[in-house]
């Protein structure tokens, strides 16, 4: 008889989902924040993409809602070691927003209302990997989780998924963001446990 066992060196599995190394599952949705929660009125909200030549693309809240939205369910992995499985969102793919943008840049510096920033390669925002999400579990995204809208890049640690997203600057070089400039990893792949610089 063949016995199939994940073994004690196997990747932990919880409720049928895969857990990256060093993570544990939570059923809550912890609220992490480096500052006070910005309250951004939808009529004042805007999202911009600025290219290396200074060209600026701008979307209002109405513009965002007029674009085709996707519903998607993803697992979230926070660098503080919690993971949350099966979260359901609605938002606009960055493929749609960046599809009209002319740029030769390889990197993106994301900024948020409240001053937070984070950086990642532009390629990680494309090909169905990232969204500007504005609904969570069938309701408007609460401010404490980044509403009116947040970036969601679920294949990287959650600090890359900037809450209260305001814009993206496309740059030729990788420029460290808020946490990347004080020790956190430039890329942040949870499956390779890239928490800190040098990991």
């Amino acid at each position, binding site marked *: 008889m063949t016995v199939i066992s994940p073994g004690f060196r196997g990747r932990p599995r919880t409720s049928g989902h895969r857990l990256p190394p060093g993570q544990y599952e939570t059923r809550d949705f912890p609220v992490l924040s480096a*500052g006070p929660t910005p309250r951004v*009125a939808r009529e004042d909200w805007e999202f911009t993409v600025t290219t290396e030549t200074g060209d600026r693309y701008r979307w209002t809240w109405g513009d965002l809602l007029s674009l085709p939205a996707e519903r998607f369910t993803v697992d979230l992995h926070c660098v503080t070691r919690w993971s949350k499985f099966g979260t359901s969102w609605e938002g606009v793919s960055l493929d749609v927003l960046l599809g009209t943008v002319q740029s030769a840049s390889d990197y993106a510096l994301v900024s948020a*209302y409240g001053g937070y920033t984070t950086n990642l390669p532009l390629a990680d925002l494309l090909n169905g990997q990232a969204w500007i999400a504005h609904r969570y579990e069938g309701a408007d995204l609460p401010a404490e989780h980044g509403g009116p809208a947040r970036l969601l890049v679920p294949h990287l640690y959650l600090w890359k998924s900037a809450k209260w997203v305001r814009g993206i600057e496309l740059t030729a070089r990788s420029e460290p963001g808020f946490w990347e400039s004080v*020790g956190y990893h430039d890329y942040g792949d949870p499956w390779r446990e890239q928490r800190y610089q040098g990991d």
Partner: protein
Amino acid sequence: MTTDAGAPSYQDGNALAGPLSELFTVDLTTALTRCTGCGAAGPLAGLRVYAHAPGLVGRCPGCGQVVLRLVRGPRAAWLDLRGTVALRIPLGS
């Protein structure tokens, strides 16, 4: 844009005492800082510290600017003090 005036999600700067004591032999929470944003001066213990985050973030109680950031990794710590003009650290004679 406004910010949340509800229940505070921060602690006072005394929350920095333990993590900073790993790096410095003096108690830095009594050191005087001057914010590079608004110029307000006060002890580090008076900062608003956001600890539910990947690191500790100390903000000026006057203008909200980040004064201090401290990240503790398994093999190193990172300390950013670019938000303070200087620290006046009380020392014995």
